[in-house]
């Protein structure tokens, strides 16, 4: 069973969201997603300053098996990216919720986060998949 931290929010397309103290959102892909993809060999994150719509495909994760899009959980502007992923994509495999974070987002509407799945809701998504 994959790790689903209780304090995070989730999207059915396997992204996680952490609300930071200053209101920005940190975003990555879940433990389940990295396990399903296998060893990652390439990660592309959106540029800082890019404005994203909710559910917009804005990042790519590529394993030896397949390349997959990663989607913006809510609308907002990219405020920071994890530069380390360019040279060490394996961080997404080894530590998906901490060192493997992908980008930070300044949400257009902070209330949007409330509509995302909680840990129990995401666990249900995985069960029925």
């Amino acid at each position, binding site marked *: 069973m994959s790790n689903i931290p209780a304090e995070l929010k989730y999207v059915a397309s396997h992204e996680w969201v952490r609300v930071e103290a200053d209101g920005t959102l940190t975003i990555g892909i879940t433990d389940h997603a990295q396990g*399903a993809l296998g*060893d990652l*060999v390439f990660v592309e994150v959106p540029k800082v300053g890019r404005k994203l719509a909710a559910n917009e495909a804005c990042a790519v994760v590529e394993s030896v098996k*397949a390349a997959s899009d990663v989607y913006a959980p809510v609308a907002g502007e990219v405020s920071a990216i994890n530069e380390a992923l360019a040279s060490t994509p394996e961080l997404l495999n080894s530590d998906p919720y901490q060192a493997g974070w992908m980008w930070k987002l300044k949400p257009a509407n902070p209330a949007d986060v409330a509509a995302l799945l909680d840990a129990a809701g995401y666990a249900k998504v995985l069960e029925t998949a």
Partner: protein
Amino acid sequence: MSEPLIFERSSPGRAAHAQRPAAAQQLSAIPESLRRKAAPAMPEVSELQAVRHYTRLSKRNFSIDTHFYPLGSCTMKYNPRACNTLAMLPEFLQRHPLAPMSHSQGFLACMYDLQEILKDVTGMAGVSLTPMAGAQGEFAGVAMIRAYHRARGDSARTEILVPDAAHGTNPATATMMGYTAREIPTDAEGDVDIEALRAAVGPQTAGIMLTNPSTLGVFERRIKQIAGIVHDAGGLLYYDGANLNAILGQVRPGDMGFDVIHMNLHKTFSTPHGGGGPGAGAVGVSQRLLPFMPIPIVGKDGDHFRWLDEADLPQSIGRLSTFMGNAGVLLRAYVYARMLGRDGMRRVAEYATLNANYLQARLRAQGFDLAFPGRRASHEFIVTLKRQKQQLDLTATDIAKRLLDYGFHAPTVYFPLLVPECLLIEPTETEDKATLDLFVDALVAIWAEAKRDIAYVKGAPYTMPVRRLDDVRAARQLDIRYQPAR
């Protein structure tokens, strides 16, 4: 045993001419000013060394001529020798592409006939043979869709719809032509989700790209309804010919309502492919796209064949290659089509489908899980190893590698992306029952091995010149160019 690179065999001054006297090697006709000052970085080997090197490598090929090659969605069928023999006639080989039309009537007649045969078997109004590969055929097809909308002064169409089961080339082509690719989901039975399609079409829809049978190995049953929905919205239908082999002579894309189709002649019409190619991606169009076809096309005035060019098709999307595509490959496809005839083409689809369904039924009986157990296979089908992965940690890659030891090329693995741990298996019509049975035996044996000793299967292959590669390290530390030792 590993074979060194030809560069590693190199020795300064060694050359093909070996014992031939130096006086006979003078190329004195080339003026001094035109000769290069430094030698090119080519391997310096004798003729015999070069011959042995490449002969040894060729003996290690896994190819149609040596092994069963059930690579799904690739239609790796046998290429009849007769096609090659006739296409290699000196009268074809030695015809210069700039030879006058009066001296090229034989070649042009073959190309004209091939256009007519392809029109007939696909139900399209026109065919251009010039695209040099499947990807270029797709490019040409979407370029014609764009040209059609522009010619009507309709610039609002910015989207191409693509089912999530599509080949990756479809959204890539749409994007390359300046469209936004919009994904349409597939339902649990493998058909396009009609309600999602209805919700997605509109005045922004330029067209939809479909493969039928789809990459899931099933026939899209509501194709007429889909065609109606897209046409009513003003969009066009693009047929990806990847799986044309399944329906050859049985159903025609033109009758299903498609406006443009590309045919992979290197698949359906049995010209060499899979690294051997080159490919050929002929396109067929409905009446309304005729003016936009890529040139040159072969036309006929009475008994005389001639190239149709810009003067004949002023709205053409233009030329895709210097001459007429891969002419030698087109000749092979022509011979193949003529050898089969109308009845033979029907048999191609029937036997391709029969072989796939036989293999599917036998694997199901042996306990393998099908991705779409409720559907009949078209010419290919999908086995999912989701259960074996959970129970034994046996993956699609493990089976693919171990199959090599049993003398079979692996099926397509991890595609389509929708199905976890999948094998996409396409036997084609050219395999006999005995081979299919041996393939089933091998899969059953590998599963049994995995139950006994999964580590052994994960160590495969054992009989190949190269053992299991570290594909993750290879991708992370890309090293693909030879660097001479200094």
